[in-house]
């Protein structure tokens, strides 16, 4: 699917879709004391390590499922892979572009063109119809109205919402809203799709249907999903388990990825 507009970011099509190398992220709890704070004896606030030396590489057509207990760093890793955050140390590259080297504006543009995001809480615009919600990213790309409508309609039909085009999110069930969100994530034909607990708000039957839809539509995309739900994790080609910010199971370092790629070439 063509985005309908010139892609503004300079991407490398030969590299993995997304690659994390030695990514470490620490958060500070509270604020650093100023001059008077230090005079009054305030100490440096404690830091929490959300990710510790995480390396990961994902190719097109691959679905990577990330599991782990709450607070293990799943969402933080997704945010880094989506370009919503940049690491303290290490690098994340999306289609060969390091997110740390880009300005905020360029990262936003990179997300628009290369990353589709499916949120746990859908985050649809309540005032817009399902079709307008799906078409919204195309507005940013400058796609003409008729083309936006056509593409949004096509995607909504593919997620079995062809009869719900003009319904607003409040008039749709949770499963229908998540399918609209999936359609929105795919409308720019991104290379990478990120899904954070995509079935977290749905009952098991609805969640299963959403997963089937998701799996069917993302066959040629790189997909990273994080979940506590075993049925969601089951759709992954590869499973990674995080614990205390580090990969403890299903390790896939950038080096091993390079070795695999080299082996494929040979």
């Amino acid at each position, binding site marked *: 699917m063509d985005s309908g507009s010139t892609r503004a970011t300079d991407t490398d099509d030969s590299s993995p879709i997304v690659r994390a190398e030695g990514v470490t992220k620490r958060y500070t709890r509270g604020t650093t004391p100023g001059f008077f704070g230090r005079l009054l004896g305030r100490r440096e606030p404690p830091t929490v390590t959300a990710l510790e030396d995480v390396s990961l590489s994902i190719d097109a057509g691959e679905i990577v499922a990330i599991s782990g207990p709450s607070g293990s760093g799943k969402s933080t890793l997704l*945010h880094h892979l989506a370009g919503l955050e940049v690491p303290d140390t290490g690098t994340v590259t999306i289609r060969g572009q390091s997110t740390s080297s880009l300005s905020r*504006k360029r990262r936003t543009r990179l997300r628009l063109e290369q990353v589709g995001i499916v949120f746990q809480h859908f*985050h649809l615009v309540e*005032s*817009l119809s399902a079709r307008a919600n799906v078409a919204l990213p195309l507005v*940013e790309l400058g796609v*003409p109205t008729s083309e936006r409508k056509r593409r949004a309609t096509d995607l909504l039909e593919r997620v079995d919402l062809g009869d719900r085009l003009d319904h607003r999110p409040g008039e749709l069930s949770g499963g229908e809203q998540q399918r609209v969100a999936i359609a*929105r994530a795919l409308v720019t034909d991104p290379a990478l799709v990120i899904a954070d607990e995509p079935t977290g708000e749905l009952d098991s039957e609805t969640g299963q249907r959403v997963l089937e839809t998701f799996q069917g539509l993302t066959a040629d995309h790189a997909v990273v999903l994080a979940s506590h739900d075993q049925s969601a994790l089951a759709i992954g080609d590869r499973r990674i388990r995080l614990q205390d910010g580090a990969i403890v199971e299903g390790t896939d370092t950038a080096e091993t990825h390079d070795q695999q790629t080299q082996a494929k070439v040979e």
Partner: protein
Amino acid sequence: MRRLLTRIWGGLTLSTAQLRHHRLRLGLAIVGVALAVLAVTLLAGAGIGVLETGTQQFESADRDLWVTAGETRITSAGGGGFENSLYDSRSVAAEMEAHDGVRNAAPLAFETVYVATSPDAEFRTIVATGVPGSGASVTITDGESLSGDPHYAGGTYDGERTNEILIDEETARQLDVGVGDTLYVGGSLASARNNEMTVVGISPTFEQLLGTPTITVPLSELHAVTGETVFEPATFITITLEDDADAEAVQRDLEASYPEYEIRTNQEQLEAVLQEQVLVLAAAGTLVVLAIGAGIALTLTLLSLVVAQQRKTLAALRAIGLSPLVTSVAVIWQGVTIGLLGGLLGLALTPPAVALLNRLGGAVVGFDDLVRTATWVSLAGLLIAVGIGTLAAAIAGWRVGRTPVLEDL
């Protein structure tokens, strides 16, 4: 360029959809802004009205010059009356009347007196105005004017007393009296119980000038009942000039002849009275500033709240790649719309609110049209609504664009 226009149009469409979807929120925001505009237009209108009413009252008094002895202040001791610091007012007025270009010079005295409908009734204090002659410049709405001031009798105070009195409508209502009824009036309770006067007419003139219920009596009889016949004090001497007289030249001549007195035109006299009311003016000015400040603060707060309620939606849009341009246009257009609609509603509500306030003002203090609107006040109100609305939304939109996406998600 086409892409830019598409993005701007997308932002406008999103903005309009948000406004239409949250109608209650939109309605409340518009009402809030309208109230802010009303606060500005009504308080500023009250300030304008007070000044214009004062100017008109002085001009309608049909006097050209006002003579006072020093400051002209309202005293609490007199129950709200003016200070009578111009002594031997009859003689001074007679001298001034003999001056070239002066047609008439008449002293006016304001004194607080006791008034009741019978000697045994409860007396109340009220401002009495003493006018010489028949008080030709006094407007009569019912009954007749005073017949004259024969009691003065060339300064002997042994002429016949008319015992005539004019009252305003508010006093008539409060005392439940009308033309032909009797009132007991005096400078002390003892003198009031023995001084019977007859209401001969209803006059709003001095009530409107002073802004308080007022009775009007011949000057000599006022001085008699207040025990002031020796010094004949007055608040003003009012001067009417000959038709062909040069007001400024006469004013200069009189100032040279009477350096101990202040001689002012209508406008100067109004300004002098107002300058004496520094606290009142400061309070009025503070109210206007507070009204404008409150209007701005209310508009800013409302717009910030409207935007704050959409933070998650806007953050999600930025997360999926929409630029700050689209989200800012969406936010700013909401500010413009709410500001404009609120401003127009505020302006539409201003005339009925002014009419209501004027009705209340007329009933309470006797002034008509105390609150007056002006084009510049309306424009200022609209400007605050639209300008501050747009500015607040622009700041909020800018902040939304600067805040890290994950903080709001």
